[in-house]
């Protein structure tokens, strides 16, 4: 009950946040870019080049999806960091924590509030994908649940990482670290030859970073594209999602452990 109260309040606060408004405008801009491409490819499609145009359109939508997905990761991290740091900076946390509320309950409420926000974001992202492919004349054929659950788990991971980091440092530093981690992952995903990276670097990276399927051969947490486009048995999906949730849970528990012992005052 108390966790839900904190979560709802956190979600309500996000809806009045200027940074969220800016990110929503960015989301809209990415959507419009994708829409422009989808309509352009549709107008260029003829009977003879239909397959090629479909390929080009999906590639373009894939890029839009990548931007939206990256924006979502940053949003999840920022929302998690700000929801805790903002309360401490403004001092609102004092009146809240004077209530019969345990510290872990406060953090769980905040985390749940972030997940509520990211659920709205994921639904919006799914809507954008279906709208773009439909308007482009080439509806996307995949399991819709993959496009809902995978990004949500991914954002749960980033939110938990940010929540852990913000119990140790200020939110600007948190966003710096998150941006660096995201860049590193993008580099690893994009790297053509991972075999050049020595094992003693690859192994720690594999365990330290989320979404590092490509670092080692074994699957740890699928990227959304992998999960959406390749046909895996449900056991593989469950394993991949369990890895992701496990990663988020460990980070969240670390956040609770640190938050339990830190000062709640501005000083």
């Amino acid at each position: 009950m108390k966790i839900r109260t904190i979560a709802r309040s956190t979600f309500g606060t996000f809806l009045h946040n200027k940074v969220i408004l800016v990110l929503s405008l960015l989301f809209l801009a990415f959507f419009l870019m994708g829409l422009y491409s989808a309509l352009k490819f549709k107008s260029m499609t003829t009977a003879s080049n239909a397959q090629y145009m479909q390929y080009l359109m999906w590639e373009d939508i894939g890029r839009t999806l990548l931007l939206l997905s990256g924006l979502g990761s940053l949003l999840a991290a920022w929302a998690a960091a700000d929801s805790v740091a903002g309360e401490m900076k403004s001092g609102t946390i004092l009146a809240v924590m004077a209530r019969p509320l345990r510290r872990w309950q406060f953090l769980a409420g905040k985390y749940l509030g972030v997940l509520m926000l990211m659920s709205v974001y994921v639904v919006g992202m799914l809507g954008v994908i279906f709208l773009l492919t439909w308007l482009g004349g080439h509806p996307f054929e995949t399991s819709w649940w993959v496009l809902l659950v995978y990004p949500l788990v991914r954002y749960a991971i980033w939110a938990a990482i940010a929540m852990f980091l913000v119990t140790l440092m200020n939110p600007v530093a948190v966003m710096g670290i998150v941006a660096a981690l995201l860049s590193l992952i993008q580099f690893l995903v994009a790297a053509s030859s991972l075999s050049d990276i020595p094992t003693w670097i690859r192994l720690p990276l594999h365990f330290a970073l989320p979404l590092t399927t490509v670092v080692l051969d074994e699957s740890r947490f699928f990227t959304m594209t992998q999960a959406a486009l390749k046909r895996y048995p449900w056991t593989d999906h469950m394993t991949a999602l369990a890895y992701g949730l496990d990663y988020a849970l460990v980070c969240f528990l670390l956040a609770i452990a640190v938050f339990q012992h830190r000062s709640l005052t501005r000083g």
Partner: protein
Amino acid sequence: MATPAIEFCDVAKTYQRRFAGPRIPALSGISFEVARGEVCAFLGSNGAGKTTSMSVLMGFIYAEQGQCRVLGYLPGDVRAKERIGFLPENFAFYHHLDAEKLLKFHLRLSGRQVANPGALIAGLLTEVKLEGYKGLTIGKYSRGMVQRLGIAQALLGDPELLVLDEPTSGLDPAGRKDVRDLILALKAEGKTIFLSSHILSEAEKICDRAIIIDRGRLVCAGGMQEMLAQGDRVEIVVDRLPEALEQAVKGLGASVEREAGRVRIAADTAQKRALAEMLWAADCDVLSLTPMKTSLEETFLKLVGEGTK
């Protein structure tokens, strides 16, 4: 015997910037108690350690040494927090909510079950004179209105102990009087109130006890009446004082004030006996001999001044 509402036993707290910087002692082994049903003022200059003490008490920060107990529990214990109402210094709030929504939020967190939450909240808002602002977001409130709202949220859970950090901060004289009256009403209900204030004249009027700290150290703790009577002067009232005797009295360093039908003589406590004997010997009728009360402000400045020296 009931446990005290608040117990501080040799509590110490030091601040230090992360990784480097000097260690700044905020509290240096302070010990005091606040009994149940008492209204206790917690006084000290800026930076004396009042807010730090209150933060330790509420479990927002941890003391490095000593032990603190509130209502018999360790700070931060949910069982204690269920029975505490807290007003932080510079009460902060969610700007986008109105007063009613904020109080509903706090009521849900307090876990208090009430049949009609709307009526309870409306009653509290009337009590702090914030009725009639329905729909106005708190971000548009004045400083005084925010402070009143903070007091309302502190009262929300019908607490047994009220911890108020500068409750009259930001209020105009009428608002300060309202808060004073409210505290006196709560005192009559038997609630324990622990408040910090810079306005010593108010603390003097409403508090049973005072605890004075200076630079993290306890300077003085005691009953308000004893503290105010700590002056080192006495007042002797006599029916008459012959002119010749007046010079002798003044010779002992006393001051004389003639009124209709009586004469007031103020002198150092050390001269009390000599003066009384002198007056009796001259056949003056001593109507009263009482220790002169000092104001809390005088006592505070004297004690804190001594600490500074």
